[in-house]
């Protein structure tokens, strides 16, 4: 398998009045052709900023990509001009977002919004683009698409709107789809359908997918490999099979314990106690130290490097 996307030592910082916030700090991973990569971590760990960095859409100010490289199909994205990035966005790399209720413009029909993506990147007349839009709506499972194409977003349910977002994202047949928490805002029953749709579309279109989630359960369902992020860092990175059969990092283990299990009858889900650290200049040691059950002296003094063991990467002193 060849590499489609290679993110190397990516650093995206936010410069706010409270100081510098390293939202994404030395993050590296690869996405192979035809593969689904999961990025998992609790809210605020830098997943969305990673995705926006790939799209080169980090809000600036206050955010800025300060280091690293993002290689897509052999091309460096971080040195591309804005107009060159525009030819990639929505065309080669598409992105869909967490909340389908707010990610579609309420004042334009869904057809209009899909057609817009098509005519921006492809040499199509409006008529042809409209036919393609209807085709895409049909493909993502919208009933009577030739009628719904003229609907406004408010005439559709959340699940339907997320299907529309997927249709829009895939309309130009991108090589990579980035789905940022695509099911978080949806009902549980709809969640499964959307995940299934993404997997199915990946097969049909022969593309790669990055799926971002705070739920390891989602990763287990759709991803081939997984990046576990915490406070801007990659804590563990490996195949889903390996990570699930034997999680190495204490944070990954914590996340595993918080997946609801049907066969175990527990009153409450276990969750990791505590919250993300505030990363000031004075911060020392492992970023997970305050919540780690295995933390010892060295963890408070120094930060562990990320090391490779058995086809997997992990950032913890226990494995050095």
């Amino acid at each position: 398998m060849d590499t489609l996307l290679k993110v190397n030592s990516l650093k995206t910082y936010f410069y706010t009045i409270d100081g510098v916030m390293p939202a994404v700090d030395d993050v590296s991973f690869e996405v192979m052709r035809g593969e689904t990569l999961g990025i998992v971590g609790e809210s605020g760990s830098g997943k969305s900023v990673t995705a926006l960095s790939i799209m080169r859409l980090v809000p600036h100010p206050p955010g800025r990509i300060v280091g690293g490289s993002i290689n897509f199909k052999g091309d460096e994205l971080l040195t591309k001009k804005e107009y060159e990035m525009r030819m990639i966005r929505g065309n080669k790399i598409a992105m869909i977002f967490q909340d389908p209720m707010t990610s579609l413009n309420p004042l334009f029909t869904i057809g209009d919004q899909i057609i817009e993506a098509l005519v921006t990147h492809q040499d199509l007349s409006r008529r042809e683009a409209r036919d393609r839009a209807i085709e895409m709506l049909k493909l993502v499972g919208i009933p009577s698409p030739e009628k719904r194409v003229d609907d406004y977003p408010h005439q559709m349910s959340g699940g339907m709107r997320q299907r529309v977002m997927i249709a829009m994202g895939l309309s130009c047949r991108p090589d990579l789809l980035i789905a940022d928490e695509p099911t978080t805002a949806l009902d549980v029953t709809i969640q499964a359908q959307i995940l299934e749709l993404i997997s199915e579309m990946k097969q049909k279109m022969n593309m790669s997918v990055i799926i971002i989630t705070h739920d390891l359960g989602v990763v287990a369902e759709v991803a081939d490999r997984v990046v576990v992020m915490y406070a801007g860092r990659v804590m563990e990175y490996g195949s889903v099979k390996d990570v699930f059969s034997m999680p190495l990092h204490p944070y990954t283990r914590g996340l595993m314990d918080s997946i609801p299990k049907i066969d175990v009858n527990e009153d409450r889900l276990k969750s990791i106690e505590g919250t993300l650290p505030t990363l000031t200049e004075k911060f020392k040691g492992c970023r997970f130290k305050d919540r780690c059950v295995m933390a010892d002296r060295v963890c408070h003094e120094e930060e562990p490097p990320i090391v490779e063991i058995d086809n997997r990467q992990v950032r913890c002193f226990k494995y050095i």
Partner: protein
Amino acid sequence: MTGYIVKRLLQLIPVLIGVSIVVFLMIYLIPGDAAEVIAGPTATAEEITNIRIKLGLDQPAYVQYFRYMSGVVRGDLGYSFQTGQAVSEAIATRYVNTFGLALFSALIAVIIGVTAGIISAVKQNSWFDHICMSISILGISAPTFWIGLLLIIIFCVELKILPISGLSGQLWTWDGMKHMILPAITLGFNSSAMIARMTRSSVLEIIHQDYIMTARAKGLSEFIVIMKHAFKNALIPIITVIGIDFGSLLGGAVVVESVFAINGIGRLMVQSINARDFPMVQGTVLVVATTFVLINLMVDIIYAAIDPRISYK
């Protein structure tokens, strides 16, 4: 959409009836009555009573109201006590001037305000933004007559490039236009400031919405993202301000018409109030109030045209 417009038009009927009743009753709140005004200070009580009977002022209020309204619906607003001219005729010529003035200044206000507002929002905290917002504070706080006098001093007295005052003839001529520029700027300055501030804050709010990120992620240029996706959404509060302002432009025209000696409906209203020319007062107030109501209707219809969620219930 058509259904929505029909519904709004039907809702207009009670509003307009209400307006006409208020306008009609207004006369009763003014001390003295029409017969005394017409008869003059030297008239005897008998003369006054005769006039009262002739004008139907001895009839109950509702009879008078229906008589008045049956004229109004035929376009007959009565006759001036002062000149004997038909009220509708007197209003018509002046209405064109005032409405033209308001329209002209609204146009200036919208063009300047919207452009400045969008640029200020997109270039938030730039020098352009700071300068625009400072000028707009001046625009909002400075009284209209002061701005008008200032402009007269600059352009008419010092630079001598525009006529000082006195639009008496036709508005839609070259001469009329030259007379209209300063009053329109004077009147529009305040509105353009309001519109600029509203546009700026509205665009700033919209560009943080998720669908703006979706539009960018599609690969659209920033120009299309702002002018299509952001601006159309920002338009609703902007239209509201424009609607309110257009109403106050008509009201504000009273001051500007006085400063620039323009023969408009505002001045006519003031003159007829001073002369206690009741039919003329009723007529002008009725026409201005109806214009207000119609502008509101227009604004509501524009809302619905912009936002499909409004006519959809």
